[in-house]
C-alpha cells in the first residue's frame, strides 16, 4: 500500500520533496515536447516564460528559506510548466509572465509557502488570467504552422493587445460541441491533433504519463481514476438520455483539459485531501462539476473551476474524514 504518500507530513519533509518534484518535472518534458510538435516553438517559449516568472516570484517572495538553491524546492518550476501547458498557443508572452508571477505570489507565497496553499497555484494563475484577459485566453490557434513559427499574439508588447494576426484560429473541440454541436473524432483527440491549450490536446500521452506516475507512486491513483470514471459515467448517462443533445462519454473524457487536470493538477499533494474517503469524494466531486459546467454552464470548459472549487472543499473533507494519527496532531485537528 502506498497510500502513505498522500499525507501532508510527508510533503513537509525537506528531504524528499525536491526528488519528487524533479521526477514530476521530467515526466512533464514529453508534454512540452508534444506541445512543441503541434504548436511549434511557441510552446517551448511559453514554458520558458512561465517557469522564469514563477521562479522569479518564488525567489522574490521567499528569499529567506535556509539553504535555498536557486530553484528552491522545484515546485515553482512545476507550477510554471503546468501553467504554460494550460494556456492557448497564441497567448501573449507578457500575460503568461504575469500569470506565472500571480500563480506563485497569490497561489503559494501569500498562504505561507509550499504545503500551506489551499489552491493549486498553476490553476490559480490561470484563473487570474481567465478573469483578467477573457478575450486573449479564449483565442485558439489550430495546430500546425511549422516548428519555428510563433503562434497568434505571442509577441504582443507588454500591456498591449497583439495585432490582429490572420492566423488559423480554431474552435476547441469543446466549444465546437457547445456552440455548434460538432463532435470531434476520438482518434484526433487521442493523438492531440486538435486546437486547445498547449499541453491538453494529446490524450494518449497524458494517459501514458498518468500510468507512469501512478506506477511510480508519485500521484494517488484514486484521483485520476475517480475523476475520469465519474465524467464517463455521468456524461454516459446523459448521452443515453439524449444522444443528440449531449456528447458521447469518450469525447467528454478526451476533449479539453480533463486528462491534464486529472493527472497533474488535481493530484497536487498539497491541495488534495489526505484520506482515502476524502480523496474519493474529491475526485467524484470534480468529475460531477466538470460535466455540469461543460453541459449546463456558460463556459465550454470547466476542469479549471471544478478543481479549484474542490480544492476549496479539501479542508472540509479533511475534517469530515480525519486521518488516523500519524504522529502529527495537526492532521486530525
Amino acid at each position, binding site marked *: 500500500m502506498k497510500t502513505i504518500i498522500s499525507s501532508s507530513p510527508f510533503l513537509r519533509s525537506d528531504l524528499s520533496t525536491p526528488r519528487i518534484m524533479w521526477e514530476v518535472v521530467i515526466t512533464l518534458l514529453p508534454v512540452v515536447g508534444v506541445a512543441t510538435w503541434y504548436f511549434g516553438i511557441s510552446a517551448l517559449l511559453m514554458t520558458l516564460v512561465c517557469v522564469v516568472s514563477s521562479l522569479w516570484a518564488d525567489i522574490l517572495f521567499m528569499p529567506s528559506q535556509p539553504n535555498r538553491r536557486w530553484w528552491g524546492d522545484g515546485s515553482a518550476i512545476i507550477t510554471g510548466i503546468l501553467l504554460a501547458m494550460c494556456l492557448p498557443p497564441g497567448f*501573449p508572452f507578457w*500575460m503568461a509572465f504575469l500569470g506565472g508571477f500571480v500563480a506563485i505570489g497569490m497561489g503559494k507565497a501569500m498562504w505561507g509557502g509550499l504545503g500551506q496553499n489551499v489552491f493549486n497555484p498553476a490553476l490559480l494563475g490561470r484563473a487570474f488570467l481567465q478573469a483578467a484577459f477573457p478575450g486573449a485566453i479564449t483565442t485558439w490557434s489550430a495546430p500546425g504552422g511549422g516548428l519555428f513559427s510563433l503562434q497568434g499574439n505571442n509577441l504582443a508588447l507588454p500591456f*498591449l493587445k497583439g495585432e490582429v494576426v490572420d492566423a488559423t484560429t480554431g474552435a476547441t473541440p469543446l466549444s465546437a460541441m457547445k456552440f455548434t454541436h460538432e463532435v470531434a473524432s476520438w482518434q484526433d483527440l487521442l493523438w492531440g491533433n486538435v486546437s486547445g491549450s498547449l499541453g491538453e490536446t494529446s490524450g494518449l500521452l497524458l494517459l501514458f504519463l498518468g500510468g507512469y506516475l501512478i506506477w511510480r507512486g508519485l500521484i494517488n491513483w484514486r484521483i485520476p481514476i475517480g475523476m475520469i470514471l465519474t465524467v464517463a459515467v455521468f456524461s454516459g448517462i446523459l448521452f443515453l438520455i439524449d444522444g443528440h443533445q449531449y456528447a458521447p462519454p469518450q469525447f467528454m473524457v478526451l476533449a479539453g483539459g480533463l486528462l491534464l487536470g486529472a493527472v497533474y493538477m488535481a493530484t497536487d499533494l498539497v491541495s488534495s485531501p489526505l484520506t482515502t474517503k476524502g480523496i474519493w469524494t474529491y475526485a467524484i466531486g470534480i468529475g460531477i462539476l466538470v460535466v455540469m459546467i461543460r453541459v449546463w454552464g456558460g463556459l465550454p470548459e470547466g476542469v479549471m473551476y471544478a478543481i479549484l472549487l474542490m480544492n476549496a472543499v479539501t479542508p472540509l473533507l479533511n475534517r469530515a474524514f480525519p486521518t488516523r494519527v500519524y504522529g502529527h496532531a495537526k492532521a486530525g485537528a
Partner: protein
Amino acid sequence: MGKDQHTDWDVLIKGLWRENPVFVAVLGMCPTLAVTNTAINSLAMASATFFVLVFSSLFVSLLRKVIAKQVRITTYIVIIATFVSLVDMLLAALVPDIHKELGAFIALIVVNCLILGRQESFAAKNKVGAALMDAIGMGLGFTIALLMIGIVRELLGNGSLFDIPIFGTSFEPWIIMILPPGGFFTLGFLLLLFNAVALRRAKANAITS
C-alpha cells in the same frame, strides 16, 4: 489659542495618514471594495461619504449635551440616515448617471462603520470645532484612499483615468481589475504598501529617538 489650533490641525492630519480610515483602521470596506471600479465612481462615493460624515459630526457634536446616553446610537443613526437620504436625493437630481452607477451603495453609507465610529468615539465627546476637523480629516483620508484604489483599477482595468483614455487603443485592459476581485487585489496591494511605509518610518523613528 495657539495651542488649541495646533491640536485641531493635528486632529485633521491624523485622518489622512496616521489613522487613515481605510488603510489603518480598515473601516468602511463595503463601498471601498464595491464602487471603486472607476476614479469617478470613487470620487462620487467618497464625496457622498464626506458630506454625510461632516454634517453628522457637526450635529452630533452640537447636540452632545442634549442626547441621552441610552439612546445615543439610535439618535446618531437617525442623524446619519437623514443626511444619507439627502445626499441620495441630491445625487439623483444633480448627477443621475453617477447615481445609477452607485445604486444601493449610497443608501448603504448609513451602515458605514467609519461614520458611526467617528460619532461615538469623537464627535460625541468634543467641541464642534474639533469634531468638524476630525470629520474633515477622516473624510479626506477616506477620499484619498478610495481615489487611489479607483485610479489603479480604472487605469489597469480600462486604460483610462476619469474616463479619459490614457494608454491608447492598443492597450489590453485587465478586465479583472474592474470586476469585484480587482477591488480586493488593489486594496490588499495598497495595504501592503501602506504598512511597509509605516513600518519603515517607525523603524527610522526608533533609531533617531
